[in-house]
């Protein structure tokens, strides 16, 4: 996708262009408003939140809410903040990303270069899986994992993320490998490379760009997941999104909006960080991975 607009940049500001800028800036303000509210609310104390306008900057900066959200906020009877959720999310995300990307790369490679009869039928079946609502699969899958003895555990949730990440990742790896020159593969075959050798010595070294896209896609997707973590991770491994929801939605006690907003920001830090540093890669991931979710 070419990101550079064609033609020269207009030199003079006309009325129309001023209007255009006003409009686009208004749109930008609308998109930024929730982020702005989130940040300033987290820096106010509760008295100010109750008394003042939600859009006003804090009169006095209060950092009380941040450490509380991180390590003391309560979910039910447990008051450990988001910290355990953060580490659980890391424990879930890192192995899930590695396993699902590695397996999907292998799938894509086999589909692109070692096609056998029926392979594309199963690939089609797998792609079909990308569109099935999770709700249809959640309960039977829970039964399968229960049978395997991994329900409600770290391996259980990793397997689930690997399964649901597989269709789209396999698709983008297959498409990438199919676009590589086939002569390269033929040459490697003539030189005596077999399935495994060609994968490790020829294909993997060329896979960096598509792997970056796949990793970005998976990291944001798995970090942001709520439903699967809620059902499959088990009480001890609940990811950050689930704990965030538990902290904010407590039914009793005084709602502390500043703590809620700090917790919300903390939960979105990882995907936002990935988004801001990866920029154009993220956009490529969207184009390729549009069907996930």
């Amino acid at each position: 996708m070419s990101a550079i607009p064609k033609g020269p940049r207009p030199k003079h500001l006309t009325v129309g262009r001023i209007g255009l800028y006003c409009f686009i800036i208004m749109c930008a303000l609308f998109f930024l408003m929730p982020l702005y509210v989130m940040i300033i609310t987290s820096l106010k104390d509760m008295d100010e939140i109750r008394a003042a306008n939600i859009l006003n900057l804090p009169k006095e900066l209060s950092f009380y809410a941040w450490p509380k959200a991180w390590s003391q906020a309560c979910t039910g009877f447990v008051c450990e903040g988001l910290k355990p959720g953060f580490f659980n999310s890391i424990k879930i995300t890192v192995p899930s990303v590695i396993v699902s990307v590695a397996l999907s790369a292998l799938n894509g490679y086999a589909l692109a270069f070692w096609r056998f009869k029926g392979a594309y039928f199963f690939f089609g079946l797998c792609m079909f899986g990308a569109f099935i609502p999770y709700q249809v699969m959640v309960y039977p899958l829970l039964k399968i994992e229960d049978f395997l003895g991994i329900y409600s555990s770290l391996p259980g949730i990793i397997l689930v993320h690997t399964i649901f990440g597989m269709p789209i990742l396999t698709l983008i790896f297959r498409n990438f490998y199919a676009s590589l020159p086939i002569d390269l593969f033929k040459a490697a075959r003539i030189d005596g490379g077999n399935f495994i050798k060609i994968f490790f010595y020829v294909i993997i070294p060329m896979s960096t760009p598509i792997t970056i896209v796949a990793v970005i896609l998976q990291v944001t997707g798995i970090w942001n997941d709520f439903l699967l973590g809620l059902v499959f991770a088990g009480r001890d491994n609940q990811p950050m999104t689930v704990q965030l929801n538990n902290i904010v939605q407590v039914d009793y006690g005084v709602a502390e909006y500043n703590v809620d907003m700090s917790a919300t920001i903390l939960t979105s830090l990882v995907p936002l960080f990935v988004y801001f540093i990866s920029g154009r890669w993220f956009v490529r991931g969207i184009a390729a991975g549009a069907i996930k979710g």
Partner: protein
Amino acid sequence: MPFYRNIAAKIALLPMIVISLTVFVGCIIYSFVYSLTNSKLVPVMNYVGFDQYDRLFKQRKWDVAVENIFIYGFVFTVGCLIIGFLLAVLIDQKIRGESLFRTIFLYPYAMSFVVTGLVWKWVLNPTFGLENSMHMWGMTWFELDWLVNRDLAIYAVCIAAVWQGAGFVMVLMLAGLRGIDEDIWKSLSIEGVAKWKSYIFVILPMLRPMVVTAIVLIAAGVVKVYDLILALTSGGPGYATTTPAMYVMENFFSRANLGQAFAASIIMFISVVCILAPWAFYEFYLRNKYANN
């Protein structure tokens, strides 16, 4: 062809084949079979025909859920398309700070549904939120009680969802706009066609594949909306913003009414198939047919 030929590829694809068959196909069959039983707390093979479906369609709550998903689906899809297209056109005007604006419009897409829901819950808070701001600025007539209003709560969900998803449509559309040949713009300007007219009557029809893809992807996501609503309204007030996905999850995990949940999930599945089938037919069958001729 002997079975052991190309055996490495077959072994490599074995996980994908097993997952496709057991999870994607197996779970649907399992759900369908048990939707024909009167399972409550545990799945039991007690055949009752289509009773569960019959009961489902008589539930007031299910009616509300279906109505909500239609409202949400329509407003969210149309909202995302219009705003996404508009933003793409604005950004395409060779403006300064293009990448900054693009970053601003897309960042919500990196956030999780839970975060989006919680932020908007705070912004739309009837006591401290935007309504209060407007009152403080002297606009006492301003009303924004959507979250506590039975009829309007679902539109609050739509706003939050459009805020999150519009950037995604923008990216797809912008990719399309940048792919439009410069000569078309030249001839349009020679003909003296107004720019907004060119966008709507000439360029938009040329972007049809992008629009169709965007609609299908958004619509397939609509059916599964769950965490956003859970975070924003918890399905309330009452059950005014409940959706089929919530109905399923509730019957699985808190009401111990498995038969109902299976029946509802099968209906969800069928509706996704109805959305996807025409598109998939066009995309994978007709296109290949014409491409091969």
